[in-house]
């Protein structure tokens, strides 16, 4: 009994410290997770702006400088950092990433700016930088496992895991389980396309 008390004390202490460390990570992963989860409904990384306007087409014989000046003025933009012409296109590039493209008489102005916090959070969540972040993310995942499991035992309470505790833990396990059963899981609508030569469908799985 005394031993268990001591263990619960340790669990609580480490749980609390892990919890403190987890705050920053959880904000990054949870907010980015919400943002990325709805990627089909919005751009989680950038504010996008696009507008089109019409101009008198730039004649082929116009110099690059002249073409750039006409297009930039029509678009209400300053002098570009780069001008590139190909076929019927005049492309102007700006240091802030803005692009102005004239195709015949149509000019498209494309601009974007990164979303505060989410751009960086998503970059971390996707582990785009690779390198050391892979190990940091692994560590965070292990810490979450600890938080989840230690949370079961660290406070005994009046009834321990009985009743409400058991019901909530069961619900947490049952929700994903029921969803998998209801949706058919990864095998649902698998559809077997023509298998590439020499390889079965399963050989493509990792």
């Amino acid at each position, binding site marked *: 009994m005394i031993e268990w008390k001591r263990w619960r004390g340790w669990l609580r202490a480490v749980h609390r410290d892990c919890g403190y460390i987890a705050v920053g990570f959880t904000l990054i992963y949870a907010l980015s997770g919400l943002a*990325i989860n709805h*990627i*089909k*409904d919005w*751009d*989680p*990384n*950038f504010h*996008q702006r*696009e507008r*089109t306007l019409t101009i008198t087409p730039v004649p082929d014989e116009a110099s690059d400088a002249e073409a750039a000046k006409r297009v930039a003025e029509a678009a209400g933009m300053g002098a570009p950092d*780069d001008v*590139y012409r*190909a*076929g019927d*296109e005049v*492309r102007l*590039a700006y240091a802030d*990433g803005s*692009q102005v*493209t004239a*195709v015949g008489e*149509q000019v*498209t102005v*494309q601009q*974007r700016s990164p979303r505060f916090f989410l751009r960086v959070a*998503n970059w971390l969540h*996707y582990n*785009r930088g690779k390198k050391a972040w892979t190990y940091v993310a692994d560590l965070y995942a292990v810490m979450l496992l600890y938080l989840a499991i230690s949370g079961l035992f660290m406070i005994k309470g009046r009834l321990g895991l009985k009743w409400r505790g058991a019901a909530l833990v069961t619900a947490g396990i049952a929700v994903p389980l029921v969803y998998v059963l209801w949706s058919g899981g*990864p095998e649902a*609508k*698998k*559809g*077997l*396309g*023509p*298998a*590439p*030569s*020499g*390889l079965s*469908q399963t050989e*493509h*799985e*990792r």
Partner: protein
Amino acid sequence: MSDPRSRRDFIRSAAAGTLLIAAGGALVRLAADDLTKEARAQKRADGRPRLPPGQRVIEYLKPMGGDEGSGDARDFRLRVHGLVKKPLDLDYKSLLALTQVTKEADVHCVTGWSLLGGQWKGVQVATLADMAGVTGEARYVIFEAANGFTANTALRDATADAALVTYRLNGKPFSIDHGAPVRGLVPDLYFWKSAKWLTGIRFVRDDEPGYWERRGYNNHADPWKEERYS
């Protein structure tokens, strides 16, 4: 000690609020989905329904992320290589100097949206294959893109009539998040096969599952068979 009644009230209120928001969201979605209903009633020339199962029509191409390339036409290079007699290395100007086509095509994202009736301008992959002289051994095509991304397709899919190396949609150039300056287009497969920030087209004998295919997505990706995942 907590008051059980207030806890119960809180749970009831939270549940009611959640239900209300969900019902509101469902209503908005149903009311705004005439385009999907309309598309579901249509058939393609090949007899298949215009809208594959599980898809919803949207009006604008959505950016779905990815590891971006430079986006600058000046930096663009397209290698056509692998099992070819004459490998090609094209810059943007050379690409635009080739025979251009505009194809009307619907595209279908594996996440469930479809964009219908887009006018895609570019060069047919079949034209590039002819120019490079693809050998008889080639059976698959690997679309290569910035930062090591690849997408694999069967040769017949990649050289289908509407399969393009494309640089304009509805008269507009692609923005960087849509693969500027040039992306692939294989419209009859889920849209991840239409690689953004295209850098190469490689003809191969044996299939090589690409970036998403190695991460659990279907190797073939036919939207009408809902080949979303492996």
